[in-house]
């Protein structure tokens, strides 16, 4: 047991979401759900974050930003894809300007489906990610690389 799971700080990034999932994430911070009970804080800064929470699918405009933010988060870190768009592209999957789910660019640890994802399931997903965070921490201490190699082939395909 480490302190990581008691103090997960989030970085929330809206890739190209319709704001539906984002409003539900913010709902988690309200007195109704109050995720600060679990020590969860919404930071605006990747350098302080442990959990990367992404909504929406990726496209030409935001793919670099997503990778940039992911790389700036110090290890150990986990990625939670919120909503069906982040998971697979959702209803926009076949659009000419959408590349698909965020796992085409960065490794995703937890998928929270829904359109929009409900606050309960978001909290559930984040709690689930805490276990993975712990595992990554253990791996990091042992010296095993925690970061699976990014799917470079997919990235290149996306940039074409």
């Amino acid at each position, binding site marked *: 047991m480490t302190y990581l799971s008691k*103090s997960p700080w989030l970085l929330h990034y809206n890739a190209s979401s319709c704001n539906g999932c984002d409003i539900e994430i913010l709902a988690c911070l309200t007195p109704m759900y*109050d995720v600060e009970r679990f*020590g969860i804080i*919404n930071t605006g*800064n990747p*350098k302080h974050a442990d959990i990367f929470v992404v909504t929406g699918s990726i496209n030409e405009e935001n793919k670099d930003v997503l990778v940039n933010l992911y790389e700036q988060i110090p290890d150990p870190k986990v990625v939670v894809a919120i909503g069906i768009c982040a998971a697979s592209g959702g209803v926009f999957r076949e659009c000419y300007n959408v590349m698909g789910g965020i796992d085409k660019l960065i490794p995703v640890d937890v998928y929270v489906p829904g359109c929009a994802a409900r606050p309960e399931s978001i909290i559930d997903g984040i709690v689930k990610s805490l276990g993975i965070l712990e595992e990554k921490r253990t791996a990091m201490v042992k010296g095993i690389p925690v970061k699976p190699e990014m799917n470079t082939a997919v990235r290149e395909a996306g940039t074409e």
Partner: protein
Amino acid sequence: MSIIYALLFLLLAPVAGGLIAGIDRRITARMQGRVGPPILQAFYDLGKLFEKEKVVVTNSQNFYVLCYLVFIALSGALFFGGGDILLVIFAFTLAHVFLVLGAYASNSPYSHVGAERELIQLMACEPIIILAAVGMYMVTKSFYVADIAASNIPLIVFLPGLFAGFLYILTMKLRKSPFDLSTSHHAHQELVKGVTTEFSGPTLGCIEIAHWYEAIFLLGFVYLFFSWSPVIAVIAIIIIYVFEILIDNTFARVKWPLALKSSWLVTAVLGILNLAALYIIGGFLK
């Protein structure tokens, strides 16, 4: 004896500071109708930060933060060791300059803005802290914290203006709204994180510890105003801290010109009136 107090400060201040931070967050949550985190949350956060990877923009930034921590701890230790209060204030300023330099070092836009604002805050706070120390000297005839604390004179009666001025800037120093310009504990989305933007993991943890030291030191400064009666002093500190939390939760952040102008105005009016009154009273007593 003084060394024991200084050592006690070095050992216990982080504990007390962390607890206060935890209680602060709990009270804040209650004020907002939430349950809030555990009281020990601040320590969990700190523990977490030290478990993270060391990520830097430039290696030198960690050096400045280390200096910040060391000199904050030193100024607090000097204060609780009963040292010369002016020297304490100078060491305190030195520490903050190091924090600002750390923020500048990373050449990052967000921390740069934070650094400039932190400097403006430093400029806003400095005069009243010095004047408060001078006021204490004029009443107790000593610059030594030990003598001021041991004095039987109720300083607050003689220094109400300086105390009010000090409270005004205490909001800045505790990084509370409306003066949490350079970095804050809430309003996280705004300006990203100001001075602390580019610090992460253990380095951020060091800043957090330094902040706890700082909070205890500042509350110690408040104590001096009430030191003739320790019971009243503790009650006063509690009331003042809760008051700061209330202010924090009821005010929006102001722009820096207002922060600077208002704090200087408060210092100039209340500080000078108070000192002038003391001077005249001193003249009569002679």
